[in-house]
């Protein structure tokens, strides 16, 4: 459907190499994985958990659990990013559960009504974060067009007016951009992650 531009081949190669070294336990690669995926993992915690502190703890626990369980990671069954996000999701789920238990206990003790604000599920957050990450990887022009549609709610005709690009180019950027985001969601999204990788349980 869409052809993958050249730099992505390099990216995929580099990420495969990192994944392979990670599995083998090359110590220097943990920092590389952290630099590459730390932001992604952290975003999940920041979106799911109540405090910055909880999010940092979850990020730390995710990388420690991943490193200790690195032998269970199978590069043939999914990307390292997807596997790490699977662990991050479980970290968030477990922490939320513990926080809720505590909250319920407090409420029972103090006879307060339970308050559960509308929160996205950690699965949904992982999906969003993955799509957002891919959005950043589109070419500048493609990203600008797609962002105008998503975040500014412009129609393709309005986007053509704002950017000065021909209508056909705008439509093609929208189609290819959207298809690419979908592919990434299918590869690294939460549903896929839970099927494809056996992430170690957090301690």
């Amino acid at each position, binding site marked *: *459907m869409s052809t993958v531009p050249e730099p992505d081949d390099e990216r995929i190669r580099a990420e495969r190499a990192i994944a392979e070294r990670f599995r083998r336990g090359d110590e220097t690669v943990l*920092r590389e994985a*952290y630099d590459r995926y730390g932001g992604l993992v*952290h975003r999940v915690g920041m*979106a799911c958990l109540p405090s910055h502190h909880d999010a940092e703890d979850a990020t730390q626990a995710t990388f420690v659990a991943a490193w200790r369980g690195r032998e269970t990671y199978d590069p043939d069954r999914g990307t390292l990013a997807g596997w790490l996000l699977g662990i991050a999701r479980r970290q968030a789920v477990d922490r939320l559960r513990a926080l809720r238990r505590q909250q319920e206990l407090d409420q029972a003790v103090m006879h307060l009504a339970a308050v559960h604000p509308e929160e996205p599920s950690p699965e949904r957050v992982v999906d969003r974060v993955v799509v957002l990450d891919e*959005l950043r990887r589109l070419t500048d022009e493609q990203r600008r067009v797609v962002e105008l549609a998503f975040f500014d709610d412009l*129609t393709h005709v309005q986007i053509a007016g704002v950017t000065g690009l021909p209508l056909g180019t705008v439509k093609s950027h929208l189609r290819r951009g*959207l*298809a690419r*985001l979908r592919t990434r969601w299918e590869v690294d999204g939460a549903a896929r992650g839970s099927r494809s990788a056996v992430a170690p349980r957090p301690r």
Partner: protein
Amino acid sequence: MQHVDPDQLSLLALGESVDHGDGSVVSGHLRQCGRCRGEFESLQHTADLAREAVQHRDVPPPSEAVWSRIATEVGIGRPADPVPLPRFGQHRAPEPAVRRPGSRSRWVRPVATLVAAALIGVTGTLGALRPWRSEPAPATASAATLTAVTGGPGGASGRAVVERGPDGPVLRITAAGLPLQQGYYEVWVYDGKRAMVAIGVLGADSTASLPLPPTLDLRTYHVVDISQEQYDGDQTHSQTSVLRGSLTE
């Protein structure tokens, strides 16, 4: 029956209405054709996710302290940046510029990692990018897990690794959880009884890479100790240790 044009399907998924009055034809087709409907629904779902994701756009990356804690917890002796950054390089970076954490380094590092990742396998080039690393990588001779000394600041932890490089042994320290203070932290080796040798000062990021005297017998001086020191002109140990651990091979 003709399937919906892919461009049009994407526009529909983004919430645009179909032009030229053929909306009923398209919606009729989508009702009947599972393939087009599946395509439409998955694209629409993707667009929804992207729109929701806008709120996660400006999340700051995790702080450098998170990395220190990870490195300490899994027992990796030091940060393994592929390019020498001044913040880890007080003893090896050529330029004396001090970089504020969270300014440029945040951008430099991912780019540097990408570059280095692209060079995996090209050992020579990679070696040139890491001037402080000899080929082959220095062997770890001994290591110690540093734990908080009773009565010291709680929650502090660290790791000490002795590496045998071509220029002699080097003691690498990574610590976390040390409170900021007026004075500074000094690294010592100790014979466990009475003699202590001052090795150097812990950097602001709670890491240090300190050359050891090649004649120093680490089987005697096997305890790594980090003390809290004041600017009082007194060169002896302050008697206030914060972290300590015994080197094992």
